[in-house]
């Protein structure tokens, strides 16, 4: 999509508005959650828990599904909270055309809606497993209290666009994860599938916006420091993403506190013992390179569209990680 083609931008906005879904009307919330069904398909070789039983695999899948839902919800909400410094200020400085404003406003409305949708799912799941939403959220990824927001804000104030690399990455991951879910839609929880499906549809329609913002900065920013940031922004997003992801994964240590509330937590707490038996470096390597979903999240530079954008804008990445498994081997 061309940043300067106002007619095309206008048409895309019209399509997004026409095909957009309603949070309350277009999702069948009343169907509830089928707690006997997995949320995310897992790899059959169960890379991190090779001896997991059926019951354990179900719970792992549900926990992964909640982690993915929470990650998307939190990061999209954070993007919205950073709207002023990372979007409005940029467009006021580089006012390329009114259509970019309008597309942007719609983009953020969508992001807020997606965040609420995933959050609502998590709240419903909390009820199913006999805990308060806040208790479940305490073991799931969250951006509250982290310095992520401030770092991205200061980066933007300095002329950087790191948050847009993060947004582009989250969008590409969302699309990828739904592709996995879609292949197993008969077996996963129908409500979870529906939320991801609708999310996927809107992500596909508006995912070019992050690229447009990066192009805007690339075309307009002239100051030498801005050009340096352009090279380093992706590294910043990558490093922040890796540290945040690991921080959030450690939250599962709080699982034991919830064990008496429901079987779900008791089984999850038991899985921690399975991990203890494994070599830490080996676990780390698995997380980075082959663990489903987690390795996708940790290796931003391996995403196809991101790779192309990095090449286009001359962005550097953190060297040294191996490419994750392409797709999930033998999805169940």
């Amino acid at each position, binding site marked *: 999509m061309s940043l*300067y083609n106002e007619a095309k931008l206008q048409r895309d906005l019209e399509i997004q508005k026409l095909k957009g879904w309603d949070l309350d009307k277009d999702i069948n919330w009343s169907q509830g959650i089928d707690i006997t069904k997995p949320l995310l398909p897992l790899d059959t070789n169960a890379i991190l828990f090779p001896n997991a039983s059926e019951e354990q695999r179900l719970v792992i899948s549900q926990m992964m599904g909640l982690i993915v839902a929470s990650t998307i919800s939190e990061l999209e909400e954070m993007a919205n909270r950073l709207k002023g410094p990372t979007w409005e200020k940029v467009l*006021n400085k580089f*006012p*390329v055309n009114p259509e970019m404003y309008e597309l942007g406003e719609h983009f953020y409305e969508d992001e807020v809606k997606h965040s609420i949708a995933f959050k609502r799912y998590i709240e419903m799941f909390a009820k199913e497993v006999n805990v308060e939403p806040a208790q479940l959220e305490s073991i799931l990824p969250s951006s509250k209290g982290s310095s992520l927001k401030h770092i991205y804000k200061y980066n933007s104030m300095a002329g950087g666009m790191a948050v847009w690399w993060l947004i582009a990455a989250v969008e590409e991951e969302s699309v990828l994860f739904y592709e996995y879910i879609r292949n197993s839609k008969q077996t996963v929880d129908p409500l979870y599938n529906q939320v991801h499906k609708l999310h996927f549809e809107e992500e596909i329609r508006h995912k070019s916006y992050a690229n447009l913002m990066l192009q805007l900065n690339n*075309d*307009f920013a002239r100051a030498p420091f801005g050009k340096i940031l352009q090279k380093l922004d992706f590294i910043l997003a990558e490093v922040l993403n890796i540290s945040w992801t690991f921080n959030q994964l450690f939250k599962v240590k709080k699982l034991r506190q919830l064990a008496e509330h429901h079987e779900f937590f008791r089984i999850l707490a038991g899985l921690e013992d399975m991990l203890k038996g494994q070599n830490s470096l080996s676990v780390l390597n698995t997380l980075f390179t082959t663990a489903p979903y987690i390795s996708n999240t940790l290796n931003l530079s391996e995403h196809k569209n991101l790779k192309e954008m990095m090449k286009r804008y001359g962005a550097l990445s953190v060297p040294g990680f191996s490419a994750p498994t392409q797709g999930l081997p033998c999805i169940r």
Partner: protein
Amino acid sequence: MYSIDSVLCNDKLLQYIDIPGKNDESPLLVFLHGFPDNAYGWEFQLNEFKGNYHVLAPFMHGTLNGEDIPNDRITLEKIRKDLATLLIKMNPDNQREVYIVGHDLGCFLGTAFSVNSRFNVKGLININGVGLDQYVGRKFSFTQWRRSYYVILAQFNVVRSLVSKVMPKAFLNIIYTLCGIEKNNPIRNNDRKVLSSIYIYRYLFKKAATMVFGKETKIAVPTLFIWGKDDRFLNFPTKKEVDKFCTNATIRILPGGHWVLRTDFVHVNRIIKKTLGQWQAQAVTV
């Protein structure tokens, strides 16, 4: 070719391209060229908008026939009065809507003219140019000072003589090359005549100096800025800047340089057409 008419403005004839519209009620669309250029520089726009509008494109004094112009004849006030004379002739009862499109220095005139709403100006389009008020408003911009070196140079008689009399062709080639105009573009056929009004920079500089601590004037007329983003002489306007000088303004930035009206005329014309349509529709609603 175009029909060229003239109107007597005090002591001087103002020549202009005149392309009448379909009928006597057609809105007036006035194109004000910049420097170094003449009214023929609007050829891509004149062809696009004839018919639906009564198109006028005045020549800055001396740029058509190369006659000598006394320096004091090209002050902003006097050329504003010249344009007023033309519009009174074309729109004697002030019933027709007037839309002004300026480029470069033509924007100084167009903006100054739009501040006075006596002439039923319904919209102003500035292409790679701003009003003098807005230009002076950039007094604290280092990048704008750096790009305005030519204004400082034009204050000196020796430079003006060198440019307009000794080596006009070389100067024009340098300017057009800096503005990204391709070698075979017809604008490169311009000769020293388009440099006739170089003295205007003296007046503008003096006028700007008196405005440095003056109050900023806001234009109420709907305004569109179309900007080739690789302009080597003028910074593109930011939203913050435009909000200070315009009540109702839109900015559209395109790939291209200072003469984007020629280098990307298809896109520029599309934007002008769409904007004029919107303004006319609003005028009907009101």
